[in-house]
Structures are given as C-alpha cells and as structure tokens.
C-alpha cells in the first residue's frame, strides 16, 4: 500500500534533480522530451486525461441521478432477497443494491474519487512541506540548536514511516470520527513523512549547491535565490512524488471505506465506497465490485505509470 524503500528512493530522487541544476530550465525541457518518447508515460497520460475529463464533465451528462433509488421505487430491486437486475438497455451497468443506476454512479464517483485523492495529497504535501521545510531550514542554519530541531523532527518522521500506514490512517479516522474530511486527512497524513523527507533533503542539497553559493557571492538577494533557483528545482521531485501519492491515496481511501471509516454520506458515489458496499452482494452480483475495483486499479495504474516515467525522465542514470 505504501511505496516502501521510501527513505533511500526519496533521498535519491531529491539529489538527482539537484544534480542537473546548473542547467536550470533546460532540465524540464530535457525531461519532457524523454517523457514523450516513453510509451509508459503516454499510456499513463492517456488514462489520466480520460479520468480527469470524466470526473470534470461526465457528471453533467449522466443518464440518471446517482442517488435516486429507482429500482427500489419501481420494485425491481430486492437485494434483501438476492434480486439485483444486471445490465439492460436503460441501465448499462445495471442497478446497485439500493436500486440506483451503476453507470451514473461510476461517472459521478470518478469526480469524488479524484477529489479525495487530490485533497489528501495536498494535505500530505502541505504538512510534509512544513515539517520538511522547518527541518531543512534548521539543518541549513546549522548550530547545535538547528541540528537538534532537525534531529527531533526527523526521528518523528522516521517513526511515522515505520508505523503501518493503514493503522495510522485508522487511528486518525477513529480519533476524528467518520466524515469526508476525515478520510482526506487520514489518507493525507500517511504521506506526510514522505513529503517531509523529500523536501528536507532537497533543501539541504540546494542550500549547499555551487550555484547558490555563486549567486550569493554575485550579490543576488536571498529571496530572489529562493524564488528563482531553490523553489523550481525542488518542485520537480515533489510533482513526481505527488503523482505517485495520488495512486496510493486512492487505494488507501478504498481500504478505509472497506473498514467502514469512509464518507458518512454513503449515498454519495465514490469508487472505494462502491467497492466496499458491493461486498455483501459478491455472491449474487460480482459485477458491482468489479466495476469500481477495475476503475480504481486502472486509475492508480495511470498515476503510477506517469509518476514512474517522470521519475525516470528526471534520473538520467537510469536512462543510460
């Protein structure tokens, strides 16, 4: 569920990006050219484009209101007696256990799934950046206190990395009570240590790099250095990691729903919720589980393919 071996790979990723820093902007051009040549990246990008398009505009074109329990109103769905009609001309993916149109729910669910994934990742990124930034700055400032702060923060981060991520998410969810924001916070918190480590290493490496020293000695002011050099150069690994985190966030949100800690407004379609909801009906209508499961797998795959391809594109060593 988590990208493990995290420590090394994160640190590595941060270093690698910094290696090319002398070339500044050309790093991005170079990476983009490599990306375009990589079939995995193309596949990933196509999957994600379709996913995002469906999520953004799909809900305006769904045939049925996704929360409407048509099948129960019309008396055709009797899930308590094991009767859930499958696909038909009117309902392309059939009804779900509450007599709702599965096709419409899949489409609208894409938006909710994307929302949970993106917000969770942003939360992880923000908190991670804060901790990583403080630690990095403290370490950069040096001195006994700076190193001590850095040390304490990093021990905490290491502890978070060591804790089973799902247990961490479950603990947070148990603490905050079930709500949509709880899911986002819980899933986001799991990725905090990843981002924190990444940014810290990145910042330390940047601060010590030759071009920053050069710029400083040329009399360029510190905020300007930060804006024109350090931030853009730290951004690349963060974008890569965020793409990869989106994939795990979607899967982790599904696991939370499976454990009953998902969005309390359960009528609101979301793939993880739909997959969890389908469990009691696996015996009579496995399709109810297969649709959201396949959608989750494909989307997560899209994010992972693109993220990995970007990582490779930024890592010339792997391209040799």
């Amino acid at each position, binding site marked *: 569920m988590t990208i493990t071996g995290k420590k090394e790979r994160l640190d590595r990723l941060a270093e690698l990006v910094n290696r090319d820093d002398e070339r500044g902007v050309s790093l991005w051009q170079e990476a983009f050219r490599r990306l375009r040549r990589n079939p995995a990246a193309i596949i990933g990008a196509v999957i994600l484009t379709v996913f995002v398009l469906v999520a953004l505009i799909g809900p305006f074109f769904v045939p049925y209101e996704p929360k409407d329990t048509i099948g129960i109103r019309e008396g055709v769905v009797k899930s308590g*007696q094991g009767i859930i009609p499958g696909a038909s001309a009117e309902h392309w993916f059939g009804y779900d256990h509450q007599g709702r149109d599965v096709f419409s729910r899949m489409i609208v669910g894409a938006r909710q799934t994307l929302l949970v994934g993106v917000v969770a990742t942003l939360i992880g990124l923000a908190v991670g950046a804060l901790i990583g930034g403080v630690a990095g700055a403290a370490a950069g400032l040096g001195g006994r206190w700076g190193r001590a702060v850095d040390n304490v923060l990093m021990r905490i981060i290491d502890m978070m990395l060591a804790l089973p991520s799902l247990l961490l998410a479950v603990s947070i969810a148990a603490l905050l*009570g079930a709500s949509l924001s709880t899911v986002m916070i819980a899933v986001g918190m799991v990725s905090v240590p990843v981002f924190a480590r990444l940014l810290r290493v990145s910042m330390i490496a940047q601060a010590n790099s030759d071009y920053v020293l050069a710029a400083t000695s040329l009399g360029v002011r510190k905020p300007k250095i930060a804006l024109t050099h350090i931030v853009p150069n730290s951004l690349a690994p963060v974008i890569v990691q965020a793409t990869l985190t989106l994939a795990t966030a979607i899967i982790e949100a599904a696991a939370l729903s499976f454990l*009953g800690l998902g969005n309390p407004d359960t009528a609101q379609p979301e793939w993880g919720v739909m997959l969890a909801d389908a469990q009691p009906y696996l015996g*009579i209508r496995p399709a109810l589980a297969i649709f959201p499961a396949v959608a989750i797998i494909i989307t997560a795959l899209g994010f992972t393919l693109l993220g990995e391809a970007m990582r490779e594109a930024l890592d010339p060593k792997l391209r040799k």
Partner: protein
Amino acid sequence: MRASRPKAAVAAVAVAALAVAGCAESDREDSGGSNNDTLVFGVASDPKVLDPSFASDGESLRVARQVFETLVRPEEGGTKVSPGLAESWTPDEAGTTWTFKLRSGVKFHDGTDFDAEAVCVNFNRWYNATGLMQSPDVTAYWQDVMGGFAQNEDEGLSESLFKSCAAKDATTVDLTFTRVSSKIPAALMLPSFSIHSPTALEKYDASNVGGTATDVQYPEYATAHPTGTGPFTFKSWDIANKSLTIERNDDYWGEKAKLKTLIFKTISDENARKQALSSGDIDGYDLVGPADVEPLKSEGFNLLTRPAFNILYLGMNQQGNPKLADLKVRQAIAHAINRQALVDSKLPPGAKVATNFFPDTVEGWNGDVTTYDYDVDKAKQLLAEAGAADLTLRFHYPTEVTRPYMPNPKDLFELVSADLQAVGITVEPIPLKWSPDYLNATTSGSEHDLHFLGWTGDYGDAYNFIGTFFDRQKDEWGFDNPALFAQFQDADSTADVADRMEKYKGLNKTIMDFLPGVPISHSPPAIVFGKDVTGIKASPLTDERFANAEFKS
C-alpha cells in the same frame, strides 16, 4: 570461506530445529475414524467467557447452551417455557415462591450428582456475589433480571428480586422472590442461569473474579473448566486458531448427542463465512446476510429461517431537539417512511412491517393500535401544522455491524434518510462504529435525534421487549411520562397471566399513540448448514440444539 557463511548458518538452524524436535513428543491421541461425526460451525466472534454467569454476548451463550442446562428451557424451536433440569414448577398463592421439581439421575460432567442442593449453591453464588462480581459487565444478566445482590456495594443497584433458595429434598427446590414479577419463570431460561457443578465451582475458584480494580481477571473456571450437565462437555479453546471444541457427553441423562465433536470456528467477516462454507472449511454458520439466503438455498445448502422474534425501530429523542417533543412531528416522521418498500427490498423473505414494538408471536400483541401508513402529503401537512417545515435532524446509524434484526443498517439508513428528505426534513448523517461509539451515543446524552436500534427477545414475554424500552426514563428516548411508567409497574406485578396480557395490550395502545419511536420491522434471521447436515431446528431465541445434528450418510 566467506561464501559458505550463509550455508553454515542454515546448517546451524537445521541442527537446532532437529534437536528441539527430538525433545518434543506428540502428546496427542490418534483421532482416527471418519470426520462424519465432527461438525465445524462458523461464528462471527470469539466467545468472551465460558462461564455463562458472566456472559452477555451471543457466542458465549451459544457455547453455554450446549454445555450447560437451566431449570426451565424454551421448547425446541419455540419460546414456550418447557422442562429443563426441572420437570415441573408451580408458584404459591402469593406468586412469590416457586417450587421446582427436579429431574433425578442427572450427573454433572465431573461425575457429581445434580440435586436441589446444587441448585441452591448456584443461586446463592450469584446472589451473594461481592466485589468485582457485582460489576455490571461481569454479571449483566443477573442484574438485568434480579436488579441487585444480597449486599449491594454500589448505590445504583436496586433491591434484589431473588430472595432465597431452599432445598426441600433431593429433587425439590423452592425459589423465593421479593415480589411478583412477569420475569419468573421465563427469565430462568436464560443461559446465564445455567446450573454448574458445585464441586467444580469450588475446585476452580469460580467466584474469584480477581485481579485489581483496573485488571478484572476471570477465574480459571470461567476460561478453562466450565462444568455443567449438557449434552456436550468442554474440551479445549484454541485461541491461536480461533476454535473452540466440545465433545459428546456419553453420560448425558437424555438422548445423547449424535455428533462426537462440535467445533466453533470464528470467522468475523460475513463473506468469508460464506466462502468458508462453500469451500467446505465449515459445515454451517450463523448470521447469514439476507442477500445470500436465496443463493445458498438454490445451491442446496440446508438454510433454516428463524421465526422473527425481534424488532427494529427508529428511535426519536425528545430532549435534544424540542421539535421532536411535538407529537405531530413524530407522527409526520412515521408517515414519511415507506416501511413496506424498505421491508420488501432490503430485508430477507418473511420480514414484516411492525405495528407494535414486538412481533405478533408474543402474547399481548395488539392488532388495534394506531397505525401510521406511508403518506407523504400527510407528513408534510403535519410538519406544517407543527411549524417544523425546515426541520434538521441528526440521524445516527451504526457501521460494520449485522444484527439479527438489522442486517444492513447503512442501506436502511440511506432509504429512510431519502424518505425523510422527500418530505422536506434535512438529515445530518452520523455514522458510528457499533460498539462502543454508536451504543454510547444512542443510549446516553440527547444528541441523537434519530437512531436505529432493535432487540431480539431473551424469552417469550412482552415485558422483555416494551418494558426494556419504555418502563422508565431513559436517555435513549429523552421523555418523562410517569403515567406510562406506572402502567408498566402495574402490568409487571400482575400475577394473573391472562390479566397481565390484557394490560400488555393496553400498554401497546398507549405506546403507539404516544409514538416515542417508529417500529419498523420484524425480520427472520437465517442460519445455514451444509448440504448433508440434518436434525437442527431453527430457534427464535438462537437456542439451536446442536446435539440433534447429524450427517446424512
């Protein structure tokens, strides 16, 4: 030699393993024979304790029902009080002393005799409980039925209903109570009133609920040596493999069990239980999901449906939200819910819409109570009359739970909540984990405007349903209705049964006019066995007699 280091390590481990293997010898007897007399039954959770005096969870009670017996017990497949260890029983004129005529020739599993003395030892053990044994989580059922102890150590406890036990001769015993109660003798069918071997109780220090205040620890008796008179004897409890094994009692006084071994195996996930049955891991399981009932039947499994001896209701709290104290609003909610559609679509075949707070199989049910049909316009009109057109209600529902009366709370919540929204009520969903969050939130405080709860009867008496719900002021409902409470008091202390039943009917009428909650449904829980298992009769009280099970050859 560097390369050989791992090999050396492997060799060392192997040698060590062999050395250990040499020391340990198998101490197991050869089981031999076929598996045709061993039944593995899948249950949803581990039993908590093996001494039913301390148990209140269904799985502990299920084991207890096979190992122990009570003075009276429900007829097989029903709720009627019928002979158990006592062959007959009669109250005296005042209705406070009951004389039980005991079966003779019954022996406990440890070989000692069952007699009137043994009965008194048991009742006195419960009655004279001290210290941690008075803790409500230790002796929940005793406190529920009897109210208190010889010497109450907590001021919250009431005077004990039980007064004394007298052994008149070896097979006659008198139980005296402090007042007349509808609970006697039916409550004595509860497995918590199982009769234990006095010798074993003493030998394994059964009443020594020990440890410190923070560390309640059950005595050895309650975890490893339950000794009763039932058709099965306890053999072993393998927590590491989540299985509990009991074996046929070859000295049983009645018809002996046909199975040689009965194993309860814990599989908490509902789907996993079904998969375990179809892959042959287990020979049956309880708490069948309603959606699986028909598929299991059509695959040829022996699916049994229990009579619907339960109630699911929508509770309304009158304290937290002043609007709910208005009868019209409560009536509007009752009219807004399409209970028939809910029962038809979400509950197993055989489920019924409820009009009283207990099923019509219990005496005292009243067909003439006020009913509230599905009527959206009427609901809207009532809301408008009450000036509650823009009502917002916090709706609590439990997650991750299957109750016999409520197979899929989340689905039910979605439907009811859609119905309420259709009449203009705004619903704020509050999902909570069943235990402890949900139970805590719905039975204390006043935040829970609406909530689902229900009840499976302990025995066949109306008071066990409506009395449990409404006979006193409770945080669950948040109302104070002294007239209603007095009506309950009167019914409970009526010794004449026919008279009492009439009073129950009156109570039902009062309750349905007052409408503290909306009774929703009675749904029949299912239990399933393998294709080749026969002999078991479904019981509304989940008192299935595994002793009667056998494999078809």
